[in-house]
């Protein structure tokens, strides 16, 4: 993992690499409070990032990080972290594809 460690990335990594904890019915699970997301803010940022990704702009990496920070602590954080993984290999096209899928799934407004 690259530093500084983001919460969403850490969560995604832990889920991926750690074995699932055995269910212990004796104790009730601690409820996790998830941060609500702001679809409008996400739409604005995604509309900024998508053209950059399409043209392989390095600035897209910083902007994607800002997007991850925006969704950190929300239910979207793991999925967003997953979408950002191809950027490590500079596969802007794959990240773009994942973002478009998410936009469709969560009905974020994408400029044509």
């Amino acid at each position, binding site marked *: 993992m690259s530093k500084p460690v983001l919460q969403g990335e850490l969560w995604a990594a832990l889920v991926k690499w750690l074995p699932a904890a055995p269910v212990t019915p004796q104790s009730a699970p601690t409820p996790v409070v998830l941060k609500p997301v702001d679809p409008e803010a996400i739409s604005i940022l995604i509309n900024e990032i998508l053209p950059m990704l399409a043209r*392989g702009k390095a600035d897209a990496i910083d902007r994607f990080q800002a997007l991850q920070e925006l969704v950190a602590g929300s239910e979207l954080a793991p999925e967003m972290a997953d979408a950002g993984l191809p950027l490590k*290999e500079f*596969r802007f096209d794959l990240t773009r594809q994942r973002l478009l899928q998410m936009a469709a799934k969560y009905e974020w407004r994408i400029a044509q």
Partner: protein
Amino acid sequence: MTKPRPKILAIDDTPINLQLLLAALKLDFDLQITTSGVLGLEFAAETLPDLILLDVMMPEMDGFETCRRFKADARFRDIPIIFLTALGDVQAESTGLSLGAADYIAKPVNVDTAQQRIRNLLEREALRKEIQTQFNELKQATDLLQASRQRELEFGNAIQHTLLQGVIPKGIEGASVSSFSEPSQVVDGDFSDIRRLHTNSFDVLVGDVMGKGVGAALIGAGVRSAYHQVLADLQVVKAFGTVLPTPAEIVNELHRVVTPRLVELSSFVTLALYRFDLEAGTLTCVNAGHTPGLLLSARQGEVLTIMGDNMPIGVLPDEVYVEVCVPIGPGDSLLVYSDGITEACNAGGEQYGQERLIAAFEAGRKAALVPFALLDSIQQTLKGFTGGAPAQDDQSAIIVEWPSQVLPMTRAVDKPETRTQLLHRRAEAVARNFLTEASRGDKFLTPDKALQVLYELRVHQVELELQAEELLRTQRELEADIVERKRMEDQVRQLAFYDPLTHLPNRRLLNDRLSQTLLASKRSAFHGALMFMDLDNFKSLNDQHGHSAGDLLLVEVARRLKCCVREIDTVARFGGDEFVVLLGELALSPQESMAQAGVIAEKIRLALAEPYALNMAREGADAVSLKHRCTASIGVTLFIDGDANLDGILMRADVAMYEAKAQGRNRVQFHAARAEAVLG
């Protein structure tokens, strides 16, 4: 507003390299990244980067191929490319540089070095672009200047050839006038004018303004216009008489009017005014520093140079211009010309000169050429001398010939003309009488007397008007006659000198050209060559397909022959299926001349041997294309002035041609004896 960051496109399939580049460059540059050459080409087309970083080793399309494609595309050709090579890979560096890369960076990338190299290259590229922009601006300015200069030249040429060169007026009787003007590539101030005064009298004015350019042309137009005004003014002054202003009076008045303006403009004008009076049999001339006129006297058989010792107009304010008068008679010809002819140079820088011009003039007159043909002949001789080089100065010439036989219609207008003169004199006498009496005092100028004079003047006026109408009618008839005569002259000339089928010069014109070429050879010592050719088996075509097929073939042969020779050479139809090609000014050395003639003859032989497609029209049916093959046997002989006469040269080429036939046709054969003499 912040300055936009330079755009860099990095193409590398190794993420670690890209990570390093990203860290090193992302702050200062607008970085675009891709992992394949194909995508790199796509990205570049979209964003046009300022610099490209390119890895050598990549799957699918390696860095060298990517570089080749960038350099092959005009949009990217100038974008500097830096190769990312493995440390110590000298071969890769060398290959990259040979493909047009600007530099290379060894991996692992040293951040500082990479940044410095990139900055250096970008700075260099910025300078190159600035120079290119300045160069483009300079070129644009130069093009504009050139276009402006071209417009000025075209304007000047338009002035020169519409305002400066006179046209031959209709209604000049008893004389034949012809002129030509070969414009140079520059504008200058040559001008001319031919003005009919009476049916048997006319003026020829030629002039040249100092210097070149539109300024000279405008001054020339101004002087020519002033000449018209002066002539009109002086005629008005003498309106009650029929005496025209003399050439000296005209030139002196012109001098009075234009010299102050020419002095202001620091310019001067040479001119010569010739007046032909065919009734009196005189040629009167005022020459103000212009080229002399050449008068070829039929009686004396020699050329008289008509010069003047006056200065050009615009030099000395007190100059008095005097005229010279020489008798002329039927058969005499005058040649006036611009110095662009005598000062035309050959490749060696030698001027054509007056002596050659006189020789060409005499030769043409000896051949009894009409003025039009004579000027054509002089032009050909001049072209032969200069090798057809473009004229550096305007070349213009006018020939006036008084034919030996005056056409009967000259007399047709004598009576009306004489009667008009008489009426003029009577009107003048009445007016003078009236004025004389008026000046004596009132006692003689009674109202009755005044009325009587006015009545007489009115009667004369009516008579004059009637006469004017009659003259106008006669003049129109004459003009129609002259147009018809000119048309017939042209027709006669065409028939006399050209073959009606192929429009090539005929035997007569060939003889003339050959004698001119011999004269030129005498002066230049250059060899010429004559080719005599006969089409092989021509008769069979006529027999099989008729004479129209033969005619089509002859026309096509003529066309091909003309394509094989220079403009100064002559292609003539000698008769039937025989053609002659005359080559002049080959070389000083006979061996070299023979080689040159041989090359041209072979070129002709091959051209004539190409297949022919003869499109034959058929009555009531579609035209049919007849395929035909035909060859020629070509006899060649060299000549130089003095080694034979015209017939001898033709005979040698003819003999050589028969030798070619005897040796199996479709071949080039030099005249054996002549060739032996040449080859020693």
